[in-house]
């Protein structure tokens, strides 16, 4: 950390002014980042008339949750007009199994690749890792044929499969890099005591994996919840995840444009991941850096 204070070269007034300017700039940037969130919240709480009369920054004169209610229960997604709630549950049903399966497999892979290294383990890891970088466009067409052949096209099961398969490289990466730093002696000692592969995993490795499990779950949950490409490509109508439904609501061209409903629906879609971020920001950032710098 290099800062003005430790190296206090500016004394008195100049220093105070500089500090003031610094905070001013930071506050301006905060406004820039918070502005869309502010607009989303206020717009979602206004009536349409108020939206037309006021501006982006005017606060709602009368706070109403009608738009939220409408977005959740009545908004039309395609021809289905029962709100975004069904799609919320679609996303939950897709995300929960996909996150759990990919995290469990990632943990086992990471463990096997570091603590019971076999010949070629590095090559296997490198080949798995490659999957993190592939632009998904390159797998869309074969995947849609394959899902059709398996009879799980346009289903939540299909999306779970897709998310597990393409999430594996990230979860394996997380766990592998975490377990590399755990001393091998721990495992060796247990092996000599006669403990097997799964016993060691269960008794020794898993209890110290807390942080990385959180990182992996948060990363996978954010990725899967926020996914749009796979959802749009491999689901249709009632089986679509929430992001697809949101996009559908917003881009419906028939009828009066209900900006307040759009914003309420957008907030509803963003809330789960925002909540995770607020509650476990530290782990979120760790996943981001591990997931994108190394992978």
């Amino acid at each position, binding site marked *: 950390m*290099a800062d003005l204070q430790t190296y206090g070269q500016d004394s008195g007034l100049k220093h105070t002014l500089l500090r003031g300017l610094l905070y001013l700039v*930071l506050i301006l940037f905060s406004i820039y980042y918070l502005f*869309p969130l502010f607009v989303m919240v206020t717009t979602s709480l206004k009536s349409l008339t108020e939206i037309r009369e006021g501006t982006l920054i005017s606060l709602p004169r009368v706070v109403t949750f009608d738009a939220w209610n409408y977005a959740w229960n009545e908004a039309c997604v395609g021809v289905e007009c029962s709100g975004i709630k069904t799609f919320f549950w679609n996303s939950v049903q897709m995300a929960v199994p996909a996150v759990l399966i990919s995290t469990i497999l990632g943990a086992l892979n990471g463990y096997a690749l570091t603590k019971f290294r076999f010949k070629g383990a590095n090559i296997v890891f490198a080949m798995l890792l490659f999957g993190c970088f592939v632009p998904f466009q390159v797998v869309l067409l074969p995947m849609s044929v394959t899902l059709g052949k398996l009879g799980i096209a346009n289903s939540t099961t299909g999306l779970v499969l897709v998310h597990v398969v393409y999430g594996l490289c990230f979860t394996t990466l997380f766990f592998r890099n975490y377990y590399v730093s755990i001393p091998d002696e721990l495992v060796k000692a247990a092996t000599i005591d006669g403990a097997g592969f799964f016993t060691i995993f269960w008794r020794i490795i898993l209890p110290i994996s807390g942080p990385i499990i959180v990182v992996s779950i948060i990363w996978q949950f954010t990725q899967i919840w926020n996914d749009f490409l796979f959802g749009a490509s491999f689901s249709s109508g009632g089986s679509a995840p929430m992001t697809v439904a949101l996009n559908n609501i917003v881009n419906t061209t028939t009828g009066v444009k209900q900006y307040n409903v759009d914003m309420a629906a957008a907030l509803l879609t963003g809330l789960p991941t925002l909540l995770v971020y607020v509650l476990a920001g530290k782990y979120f950032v760790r996943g981001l850096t591990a997931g994108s710098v190394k992978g």
Partner: protein
Amino acid sequence: MGASSSTESNLMASLQRNLSKIVVAPSFAASLFFVYGFIIWTAWMAFSKSRMMPVYDWAGLRQYERLWQMERWHVAIENLLIFGGLFIVICLFLGCLLAVLLDQRIRAEGVLRTVFLYPMALSFIVTGTVWKWILNPGLGLEKMMHDLGWATFKFDWLVNSDFAIYTVVIAAVWQASGFIMAMFLAALRGVDQDIIRAAYMDGASLPRIYFGIIIPSIRPVFLSAIVVLAHLAVKSFDLVIALTGGGPGYSSDLPATFMYTMAFQRNQLGISAASAMMMLATVMAIIVPYLYSELRGGKKNG
């Protein structure tokens, strides 16, 4: 330890090693099929006559020729260059600036970091939806400026085919710059304090310390950030769909949206596959040299 127990433990160890392989095998098989197999499959489709349905009659480079003859593909490539270039440069600049500002012993640094970074937790569809509302020429920013007294203010980029791609830059920068800030901030915190102190003792000014010592010493992070951003740019899809839908017309198409349109709306599977292969090649051109240097340089982090 006796000879028999040693063989026994060898046996055990060998079993364990096999167990290890057995555990990894399903993931490895999935990767072979769903990643490598699918790439080959797509590559093959790109050499076929596929249109509405995948067929596997050899057509040589015909699909690539058709792809490169399409005006729309050229628009998408040009947009990728504009979008990617601006996105990378602005994010790097903003991220670096914010990190340096936050590195000045700021009160409430944690709060500010949270504020700068939260967009990264949102779906690009949510981001696109909000910015579409903010930037809409009727009731959005334009009206706000009018009401504030700037009557001639005009901002119609969202519906202007020459400028629509720049709105994607605005929203994408908003979303990703905080993340780059976090990367830089972590790097700044890792810079050796003794060197800075020494430079200060020698009478170097703060800007000189930053430009002369600190920023050069975190050069690797610039490279990582560029790779991350370039990767994000090439894969950008959701944001364009939610914000401009690729329009007006196809003026804000990117390769990813082009590929999707050809595959799922235009029944041009062959062209779609060819464009996907071009995207793969682009990403590989960025990632492979980077990974190579990373793995060679930082073997311990593997």
